[in-house]
């Protein structure tokens, strides 16, 4: 496997988001909240996106949320990602109120649904760990068709 067959990893030196990634090696999923207006800020920044304050504090997420949307990537020109297709990219709404991009792993792509509860699952590398997610709910195969997905998903969303 050539050196290009490696997942692109985040940099710890990027000034806004470096502290987020630095905490991942200890399996902490961090997010920010504004001390002045309590706005949740994510992706991490140096200022509050609601009021402009620079008084942000870090919190640690409990690591659970709900799949807001997802897609199954079947084609990618990048050497690493082309070696792992098909894979699931998702947006997860965390219980603390932030939305993050991630991969849903340890399940077949056809079992992934909007509205499923998921929990962080750390994939460890040398200097960082990547917060991937796994399903908390048992997969009910009866929800496989598009129409069933729509109706059942809506109930979950409203619950």
């Amino acid at each position: 496997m050539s050196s290009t067959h490696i997942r692109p990893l985040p940099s710890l030196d990027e000034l806004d988001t470096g502290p987020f990634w630095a905490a991942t090696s200890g399996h902490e999923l961090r997010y920010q909240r504004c001390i002045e207006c309590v706005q949740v800020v994510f992706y991490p920044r140096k200022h509050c996106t609601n009021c402009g304050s620079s008084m942000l504090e870090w919190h640690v997420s409990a690591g659970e949320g709900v799949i807001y949307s997802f897609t199954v990537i079947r084609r990618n020109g990048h050497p690493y990602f082309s070696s792992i297709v098909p894979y699931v990219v998702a947006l997860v709404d965390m219980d603390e109120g932030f939305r993050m991009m991630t991969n849903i792993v340890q399940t077949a792509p056809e079992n992934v649904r909007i509205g499923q509860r998921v929990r962080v699952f750390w994939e460890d590398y040398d200097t960082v760990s990547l917060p991937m997610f796994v399903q908390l709910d048992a997969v009910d195969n009866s929800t496989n068709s598009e129409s069933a997905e729509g109706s059942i998903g809506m109930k979950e969303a409203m619950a």
Partner: protein
Amino acid sequence: MTVHKDAAIVGIYEYPYRVIDGKSPWEIKAECARLALEDAGLGWQDVDALYDAAENGMGAGFTAAEYFGLHPKVMDTTAVGGSSFEFHAAHARRAIREGKANVALLTYGSTSRSQSNAIGTGGRVSERISNPVNNMENPWGLVLVGNYAMAARRHMYQYGTTPEQLADIAVTTRYHATRNPDAVRGLADLGIHRTGELSVDDVLASKMVADPLHVLDCCLISDGGGAVVIAGSGVVPSTRRCPAWIAGTGEAIGYRENGSDLTVTAATVSGTQAFREASIRPDDIDVAMIYDSFTITVLMTLEDLGFCKKGEGGAYVANGYLRYDNLGGPALNTDGGGLSSNHPGMRGIFLLIEAVRQIRGESTSQVDNPAYCLAHGNGGWLTSRHASGTVILAR
């Protein structure tokens, strides 16, 4: 309804080929500029405002002026992807209205196809991670089409939209493309085996790229170029063609936020501005040139512009409602669109060009005497960070 007559599109040119050998993007831009000025009956040195989308790199302001040999008093390099040209048209009208310029030139040239840029699924990851967004998102392997796929998936979930309804958009634009000789030749030149009409089943049977979007839900990747000349009311009488007056414009930016609705784009804001300025409603639009990077882009944009209610786009586009020869709805992308005519990376200039053809009565899928044509560009990545530019043209 009185049409604002401050500035009009008076010259257009679209480069006719989709595969361009042996020409640089700059040469294509200059050639299109010359022919658009000729179309208008204006000269090279009449241009006093220059607009560039920086599609060929940084420093576009001075690079473009120097390459063309122009000395613009107004230079604008607003670069918001495919919607740049709708922003440029809006800015040009403002500059002209303020008396800063009389003749504005917009150009575009790209050899994306010949350079083999896999725009939708290229998986390019910047080696030098330079910003917080890349640093958060690069590890997950999201390709451009994946953004649109996540929006489509969410739209299906919230509103019951079906893959068949999305496919109908591709079927309608292909129907229009089959009537456009440049598009038909282009499909053949691009190596597309079937250049005739498509059925919904054809779209659904095409390969899945990023669920729920198939290959035929995605735009082409072509070479191409074009130019647009905008003139003030003082200059218009000395031009050759029927002017397409800029009756209203709107601009907005959208991006993913915690808790935001992925099925809504910034077109809600840009559309409201444009319709208010033109003092008309979506019902008054005869031709809707809607950026069609993917079928879902069209469906969500039509809803956001108010052609139908949010969530009802699937039923609205079904059964060929937006075909030019269907009298009910506005005609959609009558040149064949990015889905079936051309998409060199930033398609916004072709939306303006085809809208002007309709105003002039020169489209290959011509609507009877259109009073208002709308061009809406979506730049960037739908539902992620994106730009919406709406321009309403009137006779």
